[in-house]
C-alpha cells in the first residue's frame, strides 16, 4: 500500500492503495465515483474512458502509480451541471439504450471535439472505434457528436 495524491475533477484526492491498482478501481471502489465503468479490464472496450491531461485514456490499465500529477477528469467532472455540449447532444438525440457504455463514449467524444472541433464522419468513426456499444447505438452516437460539434461552433 502507498499514499497517492490525485488531482481528480479539479480536486485533490488522497488514496492509500497498492501501486498496481488501476485508476478505474481507485475511482470506483475507493472514491465512490462509479460513473467510470468496468467493461473488459484490457483497454479494449472503452467503458472506463477518462481524460488524462485532456486526452481520452482507458483507466482500467492505467495504474494509480502512473497517474502522478496529471489532471484526471471523469464523467462526474466533465461539466458542473451535466451541460457539456456533448452531454446535451446525447440527451437531445436520446442516445442510450442500456446506457452502460455511454459515459465512456461521451468522454471519448468530448476529448475528440476538444482536439478536433469539426471532425468528419470518418474522423468520428476512427476516434470512437475503441468504444464498444453492445446495444448498437452507433448511429445515434455519431449524430450526437456531430450535433455537439455544430452547437459548439
Amino acid at each position, binding site marked *: *500500500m502507498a499514499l497517492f495524491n490525485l488531482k481528480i475533477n479539479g480536486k485533490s484526492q488522497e488514496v492509500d*492503495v*497498492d501501486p*498496481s*491498482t*488501476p485508476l478505474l*478501481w481507485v475511482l*470506483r*471502489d*475507493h472514491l*465512490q*465515483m*462509479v*460513473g*467510470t*465503468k*468496468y*467493461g*473488459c*479490464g*484490457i483497454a*479494449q*472496450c472503452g*467503458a472506463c474512458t477518462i481524460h488524462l491531461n485532456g486526452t481520452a485514456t482507458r483507466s482500467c490499465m492505467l495504474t494509480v502509480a502512473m497517474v502522478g500529477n496529471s489532471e484526471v477528469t*471523469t*464523467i*462526474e467532472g*466533465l461539466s458542473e451541471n*451535466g451541460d457539456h455540449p456533448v*452531454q446535451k447532444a*446525447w*440527451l437531445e438525440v*436520446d442516445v*442510450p*439504450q*442500456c*446506457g*452502460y*457504455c*455511454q*459515459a465512456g463514449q*461521451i468522454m471519448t467524444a468530448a476529448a475528440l471535439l476538444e482536439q478536433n472541433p469539426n471532425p468528419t*464522419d*470518418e474522423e*468520428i*468513426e*476512427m476516434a*470512437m*472505434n475503441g*468504444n*464498444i*456499444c*453492445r*446495444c*448498437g*447505438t*452507433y*448511429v*445515434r452516437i*455519431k449524430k450526437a457528436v456531430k450535433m455537439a460539434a455544430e452547437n459548439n461552433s
Partner: protein
Amino acid sequence: MTLIKTQIGRRAFIKNTSLAGGGLVLGFSFFNACKPKVAEAVAMELEMPEEWYEMNGYLKIGDNGVVTIMSPNPEIGQNVRTSMPMIVADELEIDWKNVVVEQAPLNTNLYSWQVAGGSRSISSSWQNLRMAGATARHMLKEAAAQAWQVPASEITAIAGVLTHEASGNSAGYGEMASAAAQIEVPEEVELKENSEFSIIGTSRKNVDGKKIVTGKPLFGIDVQREGMLIAALVHPPAFGKRLKSFDAEEAKQMPGIRDVFSLKLYDDDFDKMAFHFTAFNEVVVVVGESTWQVFQAKKALNIEWEDAPDTTQNLTMFGNAMEVKHPAGMENSGGHTEQLRELIARNAKVSRRDGNPEQAFKDADKIIERSYSCPFLAHNTMEPMNFFANVTEDHAELLGPTQTPEWMEPAVAERLGLPLEKVDIQMTRQGGGFGRRLYGHFMVEVAAISQRMKAPVKLMYTREDDMSQGIYRPSYYATYRAALDADNNLIGFHVKAGGIPESPLFANRFPAGAIDNYLAEDFTVDTNITTGAFRAPRSNFIAGAEQSFLDELAEVMGKDPIDFRLELLKRAEENPVGSPESNDYDASRYAGVLELVREKANWGQADTGVSRGVSAYFCHQSYVAQVLDIVMENDTPVVQKVTAAIDCGIVINPDAATNLSEGGAVDGIGHAMYSGLTFKDGSPEQTNFDRYRLIRHSEAPKAIETHFVKSDIDPTGMGEPPFPPIMGALANALYKATGRRYYHQPFITDRPPLIG
C-alpha cells in the same frame, strides 16, 4: 367505450390503506435511501410534494400534483422504464413532465410478468398498466364529484386537472389526491379509446437520460454499501471439468483478502427451474475488501481440476419437465461441425409434413440445396454479471441486474434456507441483458456468499469470467432444399435443422402454409457447454438462413425477391396449406411490412454502385422487413443504409422503438459478420474483446431508417424482432455486392466455421 375489470386473474389491486407507510409506498432509492425526495427532485427538476397518496401499486400522487409511477419490469436497455410508465400516465391523464419514475421491487402480489424476456414486457402488462392509470383517474373524478356535489360523469380530467364546467369548479390532481386515495377501488373502469391517447404514440426521452450522461450510480455494479465486501469466483477452465481441490494459502495472505472457500451452488436434489441453469455448480470463491485485490488474489490460487462425468440437469420450464444431458469430455469446435454434418445427412424428427414432399422432390426438374451454420455466441453484456446481497439470519436483501427476479427468488430462498417472504429482490438498471441475465445463478451465488460471510457482499465477474462460463447462444445448422418443376414453379420445400444442443426450427412459421408439399425436420446434439436464450432465441439464426435461401430461390426462379415472398404470402393468406391455426403468422401483416419497406426504400431504384438485400421475418408476434444497402469501398463492403418496416401493433414511444430497431440492425449485422465463440478442449478460445469481435463504430450502417405500420392492434414484441431478419438482408446484399453467397457465420471468415 372500453370497460375493463380492475381485477385481472388473481392479481388484485391492494387498497392503499393496506400498504400505507410500507416500503413500496415510499419507494426505494438505493443510492440515496436517506433522502430520496431531494435526489429525485434534482434529477427530474421537479418540486417534490410534502405528502404522497398511493392510489394503487403502480402510482402515487403528491399533494402538489406530481405523480410517481412505478415501473415494474427489469430495464435492460429496452426502455421499459420510460415506456411502461407512459402507458399509466396516459390513462391517468397527467402531464408527462409531472411524472417521476421509480423502479418497482419484485412484488408478485402487485405485478405480473416482472421479466425482461420474450419481448413481452409491454404486451403482458398493457392492460394492467392502463387499468392502473384509469382506476386512479376514476377515483380522482369521484373525489372531485363528492367535493363539489356534482355527478362524476360531468367531470373532465385533462393533463392533471379536474374540471366541472357547469359549476365552474376546477382542481389539480394534487388537491384531490388525499380524498381520492380514500375512494373505493371501482369494480370496473373505462379505458381511453386509442384515438384519445395523448402520451402513448408520442416520443418521450429516456427518464434516466440525465443520470446516464452524468455518470450517476444506476447499475448493479455501482452498488456501494457500508461494510460491503467484494467477491469473485474461479470456475473450471473448461466445460467438462470440475473442482478437485485447491490451495488458497498464498491468496489468503494477500492484502485485503478475507476468505477463500469452495461453494456448491445447488444440492443435487434441488428442483431446478429452467432459469436456475448454471454452467458450473461448484466454484472457488475469493472474498476481500476491494475489487482489484480480489481479482489479483484469484490469480494466486492453486486449483486442481478433474474430468467431470456424464451429468444431467433436471429442470422444469413452466411446469414441463426438461432433461439437459451433459456428456463427459472436452469438446472442440471442429468436432461440433463434424457432429452437425453427420446428423444433417441422417433422418431427423419430422416436425411438420404437408402434402407429399418426397414425391415432389422425385418429380422435380431441379433441386436447390443449401446449408447454413452459425457458431456459439457469448452475450457479452457490457456490464459483466454482478449482484449485491445482504443476508442476515432471518432476511435476505438482493439488489442488482436480473431479467427474472420472480423466477430466481425461490432458488435464493431454498439455498439460504429462508422462507420466500424473507427474500427481497430489487432491480437496478442493467447494462444489457440479451438473455444472459435470465439465468440468475449469480444471485444464488452472492446470497450464499453473503450468508457465509455474515456481511453485505457484491459479487463481481471479470470479463473473462463472464465470457468463459456463459449460458451461450447454441451453435445451429440448417439445410434447405427446394424442388422446382420444368417451368421453375416451386413444388416442394424441405428444411432440416439442428443444433448443439437445441434445434432452431420453427416448423409452423413462414413459408409453412404457403407451399403444398412441405417437410420440416429437426435434430439436437447433447453438449456439456451450457446454452440458453440469446436475443430472439432460434430466430436469431433460422431467420437469416431461411431468408437467404428464399433470396437464392427467387433468383433461380427469375423473380424479384420481394414479389416472390409476396406471392407465397398471398397463397398463405388466401388458401393456406394446413388448418388456419397451424400457421402461426398473419400473412397479411407479414406482407404489409414487405410492401412498406418496398415503398420506403424505393426498392428497384437503387443508385449505381449500391447493392441491396431484403429480408422479412415474424417473431415475438411482430413483423419486420429490412432492406440493407452495401457499397464496396476498397474491396470492403460498407453498409450504407438500412431501411426497416415494422409492425409491432401500437407503438408506445416511437423514437425509443426506433432506437431498438437501429440497435437490432447493428446487433444482427455485427454478430452475423464478425462474432463467434469457438472451443478447444472444452475451453472458449475467446475470453475478452481482444479476440472476441464485436461490431464497432466504423462497421455500423451509416444510416438506419425505421418506419412503423400504423396500427390499432395491442402492442406486440419490439426488443427482439428487429434482430433476426437483418442477417438475411446482409447476406443477400453481400451476394449482390460480391457475387458470392454467404452461408456460414461469421461472414467475415466465410468458411464453414468451427473447424479447429
